[in-house]
């Protein structure tokens, strides 16, 4: 299993580097503007005061220019999870899917490696990749937040980034599950994107659109409350939900993959 993880990471080393670099640059740019924004916070808040509740909800709250508000609305609630979701979904569809469509899965499964171990190794490799990229972007966020004097405790930022990591794992796990069942990479990609991005829209709007309240419960985004985390009121149950969702996807992926015909 270690060999599969090691070689998968080796094969994707440049992808890891460029993803980390890209996300770090984006975080850096966003935080570099904070001092300018902070100085005009009162004026900007007044101009945005006319925004509807649902529009505010799409940005993760009503407070855009306080330290917590800026960090949450500009980075942790939407932008960083969106980028990491693209990475995670891409990995979810390709870790097994690309090997299967290119035929290299047969080269692996002709070795004494069970399908369960192969699936676990690939899933772990994917999680490590997402963890590395999230970790680097978190580190940049923490360091630059201190440099531009965003007054939010480091522990809260780290926890919010961890919640972000767990959230995007659910999207990656959805894509991984769909690919493992043999649905095909394109279908898995489409469904996962709809589930992830659609979940963001449904969950964000559920506060003002009442009939979306119940449906929003099935989307992981509903449990992603980073503003609360940054304010220091963290509820671990959301992390548990993300973990159980990811594990559940892994389990169903294994049940489906262990006996199915390879394409």
């Amino acid at each position, binding site marked *: 299993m270690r060999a599969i993880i090691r070689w998968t990471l080796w*094969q994707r080393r440049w992808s890891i580097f460029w993803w980390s670099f890209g996300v770090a640059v984006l975080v850096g740019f966003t935080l570099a503007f904070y001092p300018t924004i902070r100085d005009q916070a009162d004026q900007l808040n007044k101009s945005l005061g006319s925004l509807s509740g649902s529009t505010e909800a799409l940005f993760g709250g009503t407070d855009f220019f306080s330290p917590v508000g800026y960090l949450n609305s500009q980075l942790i609630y939407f932008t960083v999870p969106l980028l990491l979701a693209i990475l995670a979904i891409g990995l979810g569809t390709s870790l097994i899917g690309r090997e299967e469509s290119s035929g290299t899965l047969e080269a692996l499964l002709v070795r004494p490696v069970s399908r369960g171990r192969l699936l676990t190794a690939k899933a772990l490799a994917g999680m490590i990749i997402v963890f590395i990229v999230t970790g680097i972007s978190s580190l940049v966020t923490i360091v630059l937040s201190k440099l531009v004097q965003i007054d939010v405790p480091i522990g809260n930022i780290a926890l919010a980034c961890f919640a972000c990591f767990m959230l995007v794992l659910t999207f990656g796990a959805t894509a991984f599950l769909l690919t493992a069942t043999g649905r095909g990479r394109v279908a898995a990609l489409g469904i996962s994107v709809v589930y992830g991005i659609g979940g963001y829209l449904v969950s964000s709007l559920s506060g003002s659109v009442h009939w979306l309240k119940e449906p929003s419960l099935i989307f992981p985004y509903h449990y992603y409350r980073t503003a609360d985390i940054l304010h220091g009121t963290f509820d671990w149950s959301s992390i548990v939900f993300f973990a159980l969702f990811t594990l559940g996807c892994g389990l169903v992926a294994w049940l489906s993959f262990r006996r199915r015909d390879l394409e």
Partner: protein
Amino acid sequence: MAHDALIDTWKLGKRYRGSKTPALHDLSLHVAPGEVYGLLGPNGAGKSTTIRTLLNFIQPTEGSARIIGLDVVKDSVAIKRSVGYLASDMAMYPKMTGGQFLRYMGQLQGTDSTSYRTELIHRLKADPDQKLGSLSRGNRQKFAIIQAFMHKPDVLILDEPSSGLDPIMQEVFYQLLGEAKARGAATFMSSHIMSEVQKVCDRVGIIRDGELVAERTIADLVQEAAHTLEITFAGAPPLTELKRVRGVQVAAHDEHHATVRLQGPLPPLLGVLARHDVTQLEAHQLDLEELFMHFYTSGAEAGKSSLVSDERRAVNEKHHNGEEQQ
């Protein structure tokens, strides 16, 4: 006999979802230690389905198969410690070098095969530092061969193994196959190349529309295959006498010359020729290809009833009964 087999299938079948006809049906065969078994058939006959089922890439929908005495579905992981697999155009990682690919496969195999791997690299003249994506098909196939042989498996499963190799490398491949055979490894291979089949196989099965329609040893096939003889006579060819010889068919003739196809022993024909003034006699290569074409194109049911030996059927039944008792 089947109990000693390293590869043993019993009424193995596969029907793909949504398909009305099975891709593989009622396949019962065995391959003994040290035996090379060739599975022949046209495209779509079921060769790859058989191989993919044996390797547990796809699940059988009927019957069962065993390799080294273990069930191919339940004990797939244990089986793969003893199996080497080679496909015709094996998918490999284009960004890896050949050496990296072999190291990866070696780590997954879990056996220390470094020295034999190095020996194979030298023998096949493979360049382990080149990226696989930049290699020609033939050079990539060398790495496919090495990964299949490097752990000295007890069972080799080969799907069109020598395609893409130049004649020199083909010869090295046949040597490797011979060494595996001498070690007692059982080889199950599919091939389209009749000369290769004749050269390396001990026994062949002919598969058509997913069913085994014939099973023969190569020696039997050679007996059955027609020899073509070009005979030039000083006078007119003795056509009536020639036609009377058992197994002889006069394919063409003119004033002094006859083209004769002989299926069977040579001495009776030589006896006839000895009584006439033969000025030239030329024998052509055995026409196995034509024999296979006969199997491919003849009626499946009629062919199957006569071509799969009674002895083999008895073995299958015995094996089946044993399974049921278990």
